[in-house]
């Protein structure tokens, strides 16, 4: 995978996860959490935009004009999760994995990439605080543990192989075998992505080319 592919993967993860999580806006289980969760979703989309701008002159085109099959996001962020236990389990797993890959990216030889990674990481620190706080509270709830177990292989599939051991160490979970990982790693897509893409790009596709917003 080229460095550009790796960055595009992160950008697509952040865009699609931000989109998925914004689906909770207005219907999160607690009013305060509704505000916080929506804000985090917005931040993730902001990170995606900053990464797209690094990769292209036209961030919107890169974000919205590719067919779903060309997106580099991992299946974890595509899943449409309809309950809070799974949603928080994904949030926690995602942030734990994201910290590891941002840590690696902060050492990138390209100063622009390293700088942006550091900038994103400073904001992610608050996302981690939020995720950890929920994890602390729900970790012993059977529903939450089941959700973590179910999503764990997808979380592993978010990271390249060389970073996976670190993720296992941080979460205290065992790395799954290849058969379990099948269809859950970056490079595969779920059926849910096409549906999300349809909704996400609907306005842009309906407008004539070159429309000014």
């Amino acid at each position: 995978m080229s460095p550009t592919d790796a960055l595009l993967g992160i950008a697509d993860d952040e865009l699609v996860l931000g989109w998925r999580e914004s689906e909770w806006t207005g219907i999160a289980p607690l009013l305060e959490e509704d505000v916080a969760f929506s804000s985090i979703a917005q931040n993730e989309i902001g990170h995606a935009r900053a990464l797209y701008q690094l990769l292209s002159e036209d961030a919107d085109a890169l974000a919205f004009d590719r067919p779903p099959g060309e997106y580099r996001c991992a299946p974890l962020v595509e899943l449409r999760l309809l309950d809070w236990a799974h949603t928080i389990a994904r949030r926690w797993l995602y942030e734990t994995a994201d910290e590891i890959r941002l840590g690696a990216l902060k050492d990138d030889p390209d100063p622009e990439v390293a700088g942006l990674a550091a900038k994103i990481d400073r904001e992610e620190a608050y996302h981690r605080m939020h995720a950890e706080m929920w994890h602390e509270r729900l970790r012993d709830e059977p529903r939450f543990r089941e959700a973590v177990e179910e999503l764990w292989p997808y979380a592993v599939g978010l990271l390249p192989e060389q970073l996976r051991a670190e993720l296992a160490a941080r979460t205290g979970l065992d790395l799954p075998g290849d058969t379990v990982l099948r269809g859950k790693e970056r490079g595969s897509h779920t059926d849910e992505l096409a549906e999300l893409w349809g909704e996400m790009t609907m306005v842009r596709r309906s407008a004539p080319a070159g429309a000014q917003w």
Partner: protein
Amino acid sequence: MSEHVWEVFRQERRGQPFEHAGSVVAPDADFAEAWAREQYGRRGESVALWLVPRDAIRDVEDWADEFDLKYRRVDGYSIKARLKEARELAAESAARSRGAFSAGESQ
């Protein structure tokens, strides 16, 4: 989750007083902080926040005001009205003494 109300005070700039911004309902201090950050700090509108459990606040709202003690209040002194009165008095007495003087002179 057992929930508590946390009153949020925010400081707009360093050195300025903290002002009441609103409240969050949260089960503990960590949740209160995370939620208050998002609601009262994410647009750069605060440089610092204070989170105070509402239970820690002592309400004082009953006052004994049986006697007319308005002289203890700043608004007990209406300087404007008194100045106006004093000016009128001074003008009056000046006019009177001028009148008395010219009356004497003409005698």
